């Protein structure tokens, strides 16, 4: 199409948009909310899924974990040092776990005690309910929030434990008391933090006598998408033990992610249909208003395709403007929620907005606009000229 033709097709398309500014503004607003509907809900559900799985990853599985095939991993320090040097590694934690009887104020429960070598890990600190997390070199404990309750939650019997109090721990070969420095975990207990007691690695090493050993070495990466690749790298380095990624370790995490993906797909399809219908109705009303005019344009020599071009361009302008506004609204809400996440029983939720999501939905919205503009324009262009001219 030559520039001057494009100019006139553009002028015809723009003229209607300009002529009825209020209607055009409503249409653009409606389309921008259609876009918000297309992007925001999947982004929010992504955020929900992320909070769920991140709770499991940070509290339980890590992105990749190495477990002993039998007994405990030996020479754990060397393994941690070796892994720490690899690319994309954020934290490497060696963990010793042991089952204890925990008693407080005459109440007792069976619970897992976890000795962690990374008390500085932000995944723990960010999930504190009250108090503080462990300090290195101190012999204190952090208790899961279910211990605070007066009733059983999950596999843990609540013992009404309070921060600052002493908790008695009775293990297989030890018996000791530790002051509770903080309470950890979410209301929903995602990731198991609410159902265990944390001690420093050195503390539990001494208590159990498992010197330089670990039940698990947990690796937190800079990017969770690198998990499978990192596992492969560890295998290439002949790392001893069973290496598993987070989704291999936790069926729940995998199931949650799979379920949310289905929900997102359903929401996306519904969103696209709503957007398509919204744009289609707008363009249909617009074409209905201009049937006679298009008849005149054809009567004075324009071909059918020009009529189609005018309406498709109009739909494109509406779609693109709605898209820009929709992007701005979405990004504003996303930025707000990132700065102020919503507190929920499973943790803090904000939207997870990936460039892929924005690009695919933007492209989808534009395509929907073009289709929605094309169909009524095509139908109109097929109508006999006389019929359109006599439409008053």
């Amino acid at each position, binding site marked *: 199409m*030559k520039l001057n*033709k494009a100019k006139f097709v553009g*002028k015809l398309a723009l003229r209607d948009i*300009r002529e009825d500014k209020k209607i055009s503004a409503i249409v653009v607003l409606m389309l921008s909310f259609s876009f918000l509907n297309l992007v925001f809900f999947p982004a929010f559900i992504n955020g929900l899924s992320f909070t769920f799985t991140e709770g499991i990853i940070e509290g339980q599985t890590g992105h990749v974990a190495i477990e002993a095939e039998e007994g405990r991993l030996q020479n754990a320090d060397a393994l941690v040092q070796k892994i720490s040097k690899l690319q994309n590694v954020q934290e490497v934690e060696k963990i010793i776990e042991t089952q204890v009887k925990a008693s407080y104020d005459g109440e007792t429960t069976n619970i897992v005690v976890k000795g962690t070598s990374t008390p500085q890990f932000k995944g723990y600190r960010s999930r504190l309910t009250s108090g503080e997390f462990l300090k290195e070199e101190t012999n204190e404990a952090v208790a899961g929030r279910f211990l605070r309750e007066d009733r059983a939650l999950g596999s843990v019997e609540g013992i009404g434990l309070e921060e600052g109090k002493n908790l008695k721990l009775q293990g297989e070969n030890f018996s000791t008391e530790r002051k509770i420095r903080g309470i950890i975990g979410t209301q929903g207990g995602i990731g198991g933090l609410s159902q265990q007691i944390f001690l420093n690695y050195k503390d539990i090493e001494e208590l159990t006598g498992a010197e330089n050993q670990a039940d698990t070495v947990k690796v937190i990466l800079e990017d969770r998408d690198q998990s499978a690749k990192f596992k492969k790298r560890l295998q290439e380095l002949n790392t001893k033990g069973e290496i598993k990624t987070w989704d291999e370790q936790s069926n729940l995490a995998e199931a949650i992610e799979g379920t949310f993906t289905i929900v997102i797909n359903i929401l996306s399809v519904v969103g696209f249909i709503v957007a398509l219908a919204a744009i289609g109705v707008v363009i249909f009303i617009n074409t209905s208003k201009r049937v006679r005019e298009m008849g*005149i*344009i054809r009567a*004075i*020599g324009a071909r059918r395709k020009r009529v189609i071009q005018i309406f498709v361009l109009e739909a494109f302008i509406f779609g693109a403007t709605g898209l820009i506004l929709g992007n701005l609204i979405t990004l504003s809400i996303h930025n707000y929620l990132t700065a102020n996440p919503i507190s929920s029983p499973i943790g803090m939720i904000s939207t997870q907005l990936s460039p892929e999501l924005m690009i695919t939905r933007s492209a989808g919205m534009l395509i929907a606009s073009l289709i929605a503009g094309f169909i009524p324009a095509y139908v109109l262009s097929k109508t006999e000229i006389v019929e359109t001219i006599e439409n008053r």
Partner: protein
Amino acid sequence: MKIIETENLTKTYQMGEIPVEALKEVNLEVEEGAFVSIMGPSGSGKSTLMHLLGLLDNPTSGEVYIKEEKTSELGEKEKAKFRLEKIGFVFQFYSLLKGFESLEQVILPQILEGTTEKKAKKKAQKALEKVGLGDRKDHSPSELSGGQRQRVAVARALAGNPDILIADESTSQLDTESSEEIMQLYRDLSEQGQTVITVNHEKELGQKADRTIWLEDGEIKDRNNQL
């Protein structure tokens, strides 16, 4: 030379289940440069005939020849080209596009079909001058009187130098003075060699043409050569 010829031109509309014959085997010949007025009562088939001659509609049977070319054999693209290059159409109602100035109205059909803007503007300016609106090229339809708007429509029809100018009751929305001005414009164009076919409701206006054709119930009842 015959510029238009129809052969048993028939148009039947379907009104529900009842077929209504708007035109019945009309045979008509128009010479190049003629000024013809088609007259008749409401529902006599005048507009239907105009639409068929202007290639805006397809006959049920029969044929329209324009410059000896059989138009029923033309496809959509060729018909559009024909309407653009060979036929100028002026409508009964105001047919200008909102939001476009007079010059833009006139150049629009040419631009849409590929004439360069410079060329189209030159032709449009000439056409506007021809209808006496050379000084109104920057006016939008709302700034023009009814008669002036119809003149712009005539200029638009003329800008592509068509072989035939068809005006379907183009004065029916105008007051007497403006109607007479428009008919005089057709007269002047005819004297410059332009073939003009008009439909007129009022006898006095129709009689300004060289030749009147009286249509009734879809049939030609009277052919009168005045000049």
